């Protein structure tokens, strides 16, 4: 079965640089979520999109932005990177329609290291 695809799997950047993380949800899933997991931490919700519209926003810095495209893939754009942005970034997708509460399926993550 197709899973959530994330690219790149690893990314190394310098401080103040920009990064773009990509996520390809499971086919026919209508919702994408982004989470950030710092070292030894639990995943923290950043932002989500339902049918290409932002549906919820968590603790996402103003330096970050995201969008979901017409083909349902999503990109997380991170600017002015800081050392503290080093983390594992997960994308998850689910099928959310009226009356359903389906689980979120997570991608393998992108490990971002900021030097």
């Amino acid at each position, binding site marked *: 079965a197709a899973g959530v695809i994330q690219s790149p799997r690893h990314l190394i950047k310098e401080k103040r640089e920009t990064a773009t993380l990509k996520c390809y949800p499971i086919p026919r899933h209508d919702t994408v*979520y982004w989470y950030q997991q710092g070292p030894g931490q*639990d995943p923290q*919700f950043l932002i989500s999109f339902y049918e290409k519209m932002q549906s*919820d926003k968590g603790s996402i810095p103003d330096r970050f932005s995201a969008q979901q495209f017409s083909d349902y893939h999503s990109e997380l754009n991170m600017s002015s990177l800081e050392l503290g942005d080093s983390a594992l970034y997960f994308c998850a997708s689910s099928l959310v329609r009226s009356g359903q*509460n389906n689980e979120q399926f*997570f991608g393998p993550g992108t490990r971002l290291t900021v030097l």
Partner: protein
Amino acid sequence: AQSVAQPEDQVNVAEGNPLTVKCTYSVSGNPYLFWYVQYPNRGLQFLLKYITGDNLVKGSYGFEAEFNKSQTSFHLKKPSALVSDSALYFCAVRAGIYGGATNKLIFGTGTLLAVQP
């Protein structure tokens, strides 16, 4: 606000013995609870969920969880542990209300399960 707590940072169990990983929740309204497992340098894998219905939920890899409303708990269990079960386990609760726009998951701090041969 919705939250979950995992009181144990680590659980040690011998292979073949039953295991329990604890989770308690705090929600307003009906809870939607999940268990995920994370292997080193891997993504989160869904194990099981409780939405409504039977309090005993069966999931992947022989895991099950018991929803207890009076104790606000959702402990993860397995009758016989395997060394390959060693991983980081996260309990999570859906933040929003049923049918609402918010579906984000709020995770517990995770419990490291170590199964000794």
